């Protein structure tokens, strides 16, 4: 349940934004999660609801967008979107590769009530 640590950080960042804007309540947080991050969005949502209780972000909408994975083959330099977690380069069959997209875990924006 490492989602709770992640949510704690999201909440801290969102409440920082709220403080910087006269403590306006948080209406929505939007996060981007790479498809290769081992993070369960449902668990994030559950943890966010629990952790935000009694804060300025209580009741805020937790929105997440998935960033699809993109991998660079280190042998033939082909770029591809892996179809499954255990991928091989579709061009040369090599395993591994460098992750270009899919490892994101980003707080994109915070919407405050006006």
């Amino acid at each position, binding site marked *: *349940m*490492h989602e709770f*640590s*992640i949510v704690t*950080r*999201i909440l801290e*960042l969102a409440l920082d*934004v709220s403080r910087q*804007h006269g403590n*306006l309540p948080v209406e*929505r947080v939007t*996060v981007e999660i790479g498809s*290769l*991050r*081992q*993070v369960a969005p449902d668990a994030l949502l559950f943890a966010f609801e629990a952790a935000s209780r009694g804060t300025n972000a209580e009741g805020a909408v937790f929105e997440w967008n998935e960033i699809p994975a993109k991998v660079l083959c280190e042998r033939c330099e082909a770029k591809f979107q892996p179809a499954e*977690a*255990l*991928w*091989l380069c579709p061009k040369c069959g*090599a*395993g*591994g590769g460098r992750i270009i997209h899919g490892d994101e*875990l*980003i*707080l*994109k*924006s*915070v*919407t*405050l009530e*006006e």
Partner: protein
Amino acid sequence: MEIEVVQKILKVNDEIAAGIRACLERARVAAVNLISAPGSGKTSLIEAALAALRDTHRIGVIEGDPDTTLDAERVAKLGAPVVQIQTSGGCHLEANLVHRAIDRLPLGELDLLLIENVGNLVCPVEFDLGESDRVAVVSTPEGHDKPAKYPKLFRSASTVVLNKIDLLPYVDFDEAIFEAYVRKTNPNARILRVSCKTGEGINAWTQWLESRCRTGVSQAIGVKDRA
């Protein structure tokens, strides 16, 4: 009013980890983060390393567990400085916990720091601790499909230790399939076959650790010195 933030959520962890890495490199301490399921033999591998290297290398240990100091007690018996982190049920170590633990170790006197993560194949993978090497440990009774089910760990590990090879005759573990799965996730990973019980393959494990103390750290520093 929507306010753009665009910040890495684990930025604080990554920054602390980068600080730990720089601090360890300055002190010329190689750091190995051991990740496995509970019961794969991380503590036994640490004990084997201490037994083999304690006369020639100074090794510090950080033990991560949800509860108890049992592992730290095992390691302390072998005379190594050890700090037990109790995560109070937490499923992984984070850089801030390791940072505090390092403050309690005689870093200037060490060659190698062994960090035993909480037994878990998912959560620890997501948190950089500032290690120079990550080691994935699998034991044969767990089955040969672990790299297929948890590819991210194997992708991020420089070395894979297959422990409990003495049990191979008794369990359904196909080494060829296991190796093929490892290669799919990480073509360059080093695979070490060991048995902490019989001692088979332990030399290769301790020699690899020894090489990390010498070349790992000094090479990393050498590259920087030349740059």
